């Protein structure tokens, strides 16, 4: 017995010693990897965490230590560590993917980082703030160089369609995940980071049209948080994304003299998704473009301009349905992708308002216990970019309140064109959704909730050109609300049998009339936490 106890004690001691050596080597290993990965450190630190967690014996600890010591050489040679732990090997693939990423290695970033050590007043940026300051400077310089001080270029064109701007968002986002061990994401929530970006613009007194540099920086913050979540969840998985289109050939086509409003939208979506999936080298995504226009022009354009990528498949389908207004295309596409075996399925509008590099935010929201649907909200405190400072117009706000009341959906943005679902929630919900019009969103969300799944929200950074004081996209909210009311009846929430003061008021005055009496400061309903 004494011999056994002594053996265990010796083993524990050796293990502790070996682990301690691995811990002691950690910073150096991260630095060696970072020096080969443009300064990026998150993947390296997750890999070392995995190594540390995998070892259970002193011998394994020594093997892990040897691997950590060889990290730099392995990256140089393109090799992979020969360790017996699959999770650690998967993490190493993330390390190599990060090191090979084009957006990791940026001389412009390196210069901006160096210059962002302090402010013009002589104050020093906190290391957690420095990446934000560097990103802000890069984006300000880019906008001024590209557009000067004139006009207000659309943010989707600046930060998505144009390759230089899109790449810059990704460069900044990559480094916000962790540069030389520093990241703001672990210290501050997105609401605070959005405020910080605005504060920087105010303090610097930069005259940038449309505050495009703030829009770009916030988009980078969101993309960084999206990628950070994916890096932390090394799953061999897949995700499907439905993109409904109707008469959008010009948006799919790249901009040129004949098509100045072209967005190159499908190629951009693939590029955004491809950047994000660098964090998941073993994952795959499928974009299903569903053209519901009888002429098929959008589908033809998509076939012409869809870009390929090893991790992203683009499938183009035509499906004409007389009574559909977006809803039919989305619901059909969702069912197809669930049938194809994707455990998570999303849909996104074709325009570039919702960057697909923020898909990780929705996946993170879906990762909460019980969640079946996640909305990329434009209306939360941590949302940015879709609405002018005053928020949505009164009619849109009243519509949201009526939806909450009629369907029992306490969400801020039921109509957002960027949502994700678990396959299990869709299997339960899709058969119950009959609305194929513009109100299909609320019907689908209500069906998901009725099936016992939680509907969650996350704030996104939208790339959208709003005009202060402009009422926004005209919608027939009254018709949509009538459809929502029918959905409520189908889900056993007949407003005749319940107290529905908002709905009653709208019925009496029409939505526009009721909205006129809406107090200016009315708050959007709080989403569930």
């Amino acid at each position: 017995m004494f011999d056994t106890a002594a053996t265990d004690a010796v083993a524990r001691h050796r293990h502790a010693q070996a682990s301690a050596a691995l811990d002691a080597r950690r910073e150096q290993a991260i630095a060696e990897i970072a020096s080969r990965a443009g300064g990026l450190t998150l993947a390296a630190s997750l890999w070392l965490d995995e190594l540390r967690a995998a070892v259970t014996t002193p011998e394994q600890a020594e093997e892990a230590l040897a691997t950590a010591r060889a990290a730099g050489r392995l990256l140089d040679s393109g090799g992979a560590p020969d360790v017996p732990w699959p999770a650690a090997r998967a993490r190493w693939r993330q390390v190599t993917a990060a090191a090979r990423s084009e957006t990791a290695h940026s001389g412009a970033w390196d210069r901006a980082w160096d210059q962002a050590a302090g402010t013009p007043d002589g104050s020093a940026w906190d290391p957690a703030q420095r990446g934000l300051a560097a990103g802000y400077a890069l984006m300000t310089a880019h906008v001024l160089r590209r557009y000067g001080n004139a006009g207000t270029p659309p943010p989707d064109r600046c930060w998505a369609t144009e390759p230089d701007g899109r790449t810059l968002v990704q460069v900044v986002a990559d480094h916000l995940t962790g540069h030389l061990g520093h990241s703001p994401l672990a210290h501050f929530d997105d609401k605070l980071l959005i405020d910080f970006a605005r504060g920087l613009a105010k303090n610097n007194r930069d005259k940038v049209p449309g505050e495009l540099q703030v829009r770009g920086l916030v988009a980078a913050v969101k993309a960084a948080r999206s990628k950070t979540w994916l890096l932390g969840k090394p799953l061999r998985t897949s995700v499907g994304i439905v993109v409904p289109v109707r008469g959008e050939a010009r948006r799919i086509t790249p901009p040129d003299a004949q098509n100045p409003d072209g967005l190159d939208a499908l190629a951009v979506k693939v590029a955004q998704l491809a950047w994000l999936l660098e964090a998941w080298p073993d994952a795959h995504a499928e974009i299903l473009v569903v053209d519901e226009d009888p002429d098929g022009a959008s589908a033809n354009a998509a076939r012409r301009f869809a870009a390929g990528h090893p991790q992203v498949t683009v499938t183009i389908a035509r499906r004409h349905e007389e009574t559909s207004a977006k809803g039919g295309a989305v619901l059909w596409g969702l069912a197809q992708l669930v049938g194809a075996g994707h455990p998570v399925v999303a849909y996104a509008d074709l325009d570039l308002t919702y960057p697909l590099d923020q898909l990780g935010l929705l996946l993170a929201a879906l990762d909460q216990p019980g969640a079946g649907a996640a909305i990329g909200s434009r209306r939360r405190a941590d949302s940015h970019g879709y609405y002018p400072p005053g928020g949505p117009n009164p009619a849109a706000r009243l519509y949201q309140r009526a939806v909450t009341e009629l369907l029992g959906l306490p969400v801020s943005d039921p109509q957002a064109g960027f949502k994700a679902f678990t396959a299990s929630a869709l299997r339960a919900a899709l058969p119950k959704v009959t609305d194929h019009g513009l109100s299909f969103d609320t019907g689908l969300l209500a069906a998901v909730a009725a099936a016992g799944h939680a509907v969650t929200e996350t704030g996104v950074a939208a790339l959208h050109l709003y005009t202060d004081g402009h009422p926004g996209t005209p919608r027939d909210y009254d018709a949509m609300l009538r459809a929502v009311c029918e959905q409520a009846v189908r889900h056993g929430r007949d407003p005749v049998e319940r107290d529905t003061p908002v709905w009653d008021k709208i019925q009496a005055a029409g939505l526009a009339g009721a909205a006129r009496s809406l107090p200016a400061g009315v708050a959007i309903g709080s989403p569930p936490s």
Partner: protein
Amino acid sequence: MTAPVTASRAAATEQPATLLAGPHRADTARLLQSVLDTAGPYEAVAAARRLSGGPLGHALADVAAQRMLHEPSGRRVPFQELGSRVLTPLSRKYDLDPAHAEALRFALRCRFFYPGIVGTPDAPFALKPELPDGYQPIATPEQIAAAQSKAGPDGLNTSYMISQMKGGMSADFGIGCPLMCAYCYRREGATVDGYLGSWEPKGFLTAEEVIQRLLAHPWFTPHVTPIGLHMSTSEAFLPRLWPRTWEALQRLDALGLTNRVSCITKHTLTDEQIGQLESLVNVDLDVNVCYAAMPDAVEPANKQRRADFLRRVLASDKLNVLAYYRPIAEGVNTTDEHMRHVWQTFKEAGARTVVLGGLKFADDHARSFMSYGLPLPQGTFTPGKKLLTAATEQRSLTAPAPATASPGPSPHSPTPTRRSTPSTWPPAGSPSPPGPPTPVCCTASSAPCSRHPPSATRPVTRSPRWPPPAALPAPR
């Protein structure tokens, strides 16, 4: 407004004539205070001299002949400085035995008024055994104690507005300051104390109300307790608040109070307003001007106007003026260039004494700094404590001199001392010492600064008329 609390003049005429300790002391005090006049204490000194003889009488004669109860500028020697500036020299000069030295101390204490509910000449730190006829305090000690028990962690009493703070009483007229310093702990919005403030000063009490509240407070001792005006919630010299500040100072002065009253400011006054402050006779006023080369985005108040105000107010031979080198926020205003600039500014303004102080910073401040797009100060902050590391303090004292200007403080000459003992303060109007400004530390630690001498150590006796001590929360 409350009349000064004095003994009945009628009773004074029948009292035995001696200053020495004994059962007749209270009557003697009433006798001497019956001839006290805010215009001048020397008639009462003469009355005391008539009650004494020998060395004690000679000492009192010196007091009157040399006008020892006044500074050269004409202002009263504060109660707190009697010992060092009058009693000790005279006791030594006339070789007074302890009993006569104590009698001299008593006689001179009779030169002061004791308005409010605390203090008499024979028990200047105690609650009055009985209040003067007709005086009705604005609140009972029980009510005040109950209000104070709800104060936040920093002691700020947001209902009664007279707060026992770390180093004295803060008399706050209201809440709100438009200067928008990012590090302010009374800034707009809910703070860590759950305290809702506003940038705009509004709903402020009148000066009369504030003085009444002060006098009714059982922890306010006339002539002893340091007072801060607007110190916790606003800024004394804001144009909107100046009339109240000035009226409060006048009222304190008219009551014959010699408490130290401090105004810490990032604002300015006109020469005319400075002249008004110079006219105060009794109140021991400190004007403390903050200047720390803080970036405008952190501290928007105009620095150039502040430096100019510091120069103008330092030229006064009647005002105590401190240059407040604070807050020093690690990483925000701590480069050599920042430090050189501050010392050069102080030197050019003619500052004699500089108070160094760190920054109090908490999680909600971090949120504010982030939301304003400002660089976060560095270091490890302890809740409720200011942070100024020894290394930064030392660096600030040895900041290299600017290339084209005369040097700041010599690395050898300044010896950081704490101005918690009033006697170390040069009397207003005394000539400036040669050489650079003398730094005084008001640092992070719990060490009190000149504005915050420990007041809780004073002896307090309580009359049976008041609730037993256990019923009152201990001063913070």
